[in-house]
């Protein structure tokens, strides 16, 4: 994928030979990926191919069986808890169903990372919460409980929480799953905005073709635990790899 003469920037995340297992079954078999700064990288593939597993393993939400993962050049898999948490503070994640803490309001959910990791005054925290909620278009829902929100609103609130500490990398697990096309489009627009305005590095797991076409700079195509392709979207379509051709062919309308 690397062309002569073009200097590729240092990858933000570098994954080498990542193996993930669930009991005896191997879910991911030797994945090697570079995620470059300021780009939207989309991890795609059919259901059950290991997309979410890859995301969770590179973040140590599950411990990988083998391989190496480094963020900003630092290996994280054998890192001590404190150092790893310092890495995580520079990242944010939008979970598939929001994963908001259910017993507290949207306001408090976004407040948690701010209270816990900074010494900011209540007034400043208050302003940050309001601006982040406004950014995702949820200003009116600030004091609502997660159970009072719709699926799309939960994702937006979760995004606002992920953005609370102004992360440099944003991870999104199936942002458009279960959303209507219009809401899904507006969420994509929001993500594009984050990339363009804030130069954020974004990693997205999805299988929504429309969404991939709108936002992807680079794609990583997984199939049955193996990485079939990693590179630009147009290159993927020209690659002639049967599974990828089939994926894009079936989804055309």
């Amino acid at each position: 994928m690397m062309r002569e003469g073009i200097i590729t920037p240092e990858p933000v995340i570098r994954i080498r030979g990542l193996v993930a297992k669930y009991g005896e079954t191997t879910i991911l078999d030797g994945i090697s990926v570079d995620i470059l700064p300021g780009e939207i990288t989309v991890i795609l593939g059919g259901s059950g191919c290991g997309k979410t597993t890859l995301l969770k393993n590179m973040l140590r939400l599950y411990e990988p069986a083998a391989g190496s993962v480094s963020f900003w050049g630092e290996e994280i898999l054998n890192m001590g808890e404190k150092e790893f948490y310092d890495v995580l503070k520079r990242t944010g994640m939008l979970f598939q169903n929001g994963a908001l803490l259910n017993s507290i309001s949207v306001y408090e959910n976004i407040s948690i990372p701010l209270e816990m990791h900074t010494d900011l005054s209540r007034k400043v925290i208050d302003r940050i919460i309001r601006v982040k909620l406004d950014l995702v278009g949820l200003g009116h829902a600030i004091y609502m409980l997660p159970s009072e929100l719709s699926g799309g609103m939960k994702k937006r609130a979760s995004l606002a929480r992920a953005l609370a500490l102004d992360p440099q990398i944003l991870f999104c697990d199936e942002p458009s799953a279960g959303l209507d096309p219009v809401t899904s489009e507006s969420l994509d627009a929001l993500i594009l905005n984050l990339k363009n305005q804030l130069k954020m590095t974004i990693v997205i797991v999805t299988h929504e073709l429309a969404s991939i076409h709108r936002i992807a700079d680079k794609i990583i195509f997984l199939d049955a635990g193996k990485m079939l392709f990693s590179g630009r979207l147009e290159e993927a379509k020209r690659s002639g790899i049967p599974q990828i051709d089939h994926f894009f062919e079936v989804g055309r309308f």
Partner: protein
Amino acid sequence: MYLNLSNNVLILEGDFTKFTVPEAEKELARFLKDNSPDKITMIDLAGILSIDSAGVSFLDELHLHYGEQSGILLFKGARPEVQALINTFSTIKLAAVAPDRPMGFFEKIGDDAINSYHSLVEALTLASEIFYYSATGLFNRKGQRKGSTIQQAVLLGSQALPIVALLSFIIGFILSLQSGVQLRDFGVGVFLADLLAITMVREMGPLITSIIVAGRSGSAIASEIATMQVTEELDALRMMALHPIRFVVVPKFHAITIVMPILVMFSILVAELAGAGIAVTLLDTSIETFVNRSLEILTIKDVIVSFGKSIWFAWVIVIIGSFYGFQVRGGAEGVGQATTASVVSSIFAVILFDAIFSLLYL
């Protein structure tokens, strides 16, 4: 009649659907008693008016069973719409899927033993983590939300107070009444004070309170953590660089450590109150005598053991509740199982530890 035989050709007639196939099967059995299947070389399907998946399965049975015996068995003449259904529903082309082999007796014992060993290791690891973070959390409040310990203390303690008090009163009442009647018959009713004080302080107070807290709060802890696990809230906490044990479990651990001895104290006092009532009304003991005797018989050691074991039981309840919460797999059903398992195990563990304590500090 569904079956007819002429010139070695078996002719099927009529409807072959889930409602008629049972009848056809009986007829086939009768038919084969009179005629050897060897004679059938061909089956004529032209007479079939309608068929569904049950009917096709019947044909497949016929084919596999009797076709093997006679060697040749040909189907012919089905109407196109019937043939289409036969093609769709035929099971002959399906690969046989063998069910998982059930485990043998010894295999199962071994499997259980290995699983129990792994669970024990995991529980001990979790317990050590909880102790570690609770100890460090005393000095370093980072990683816990402000006010979360107080909030948990209200939830685990204050709200449990009415039920603990009520049950302790009733148990104190029953205990005093039963033993009071016995003691009165021997003319030593005044000893009720000694008996009740020792029983409540050393055994019943901590035990009743722990069992109520295990039922109330052990289940709440397990289901809260299990739900958080299932809805990815724990993952979300980790991604926010917050340790789930420090954020969720430690406040509960601190709260229950403070609250449990207070609950036990209330339990003992309320039971003593019931006992005093019985002593005054039934045994004609004066209230001063009752109080003085109760205080005289108790030693500092009794009180320390009582509070010591109540704190230990409290820790056991939190650890077991968290263990089942973090272990949960699957969705809503898993949460229910985790809750049930945590209550059963924590009550069992509390009673077991109580027995050990009783032996150790007789």
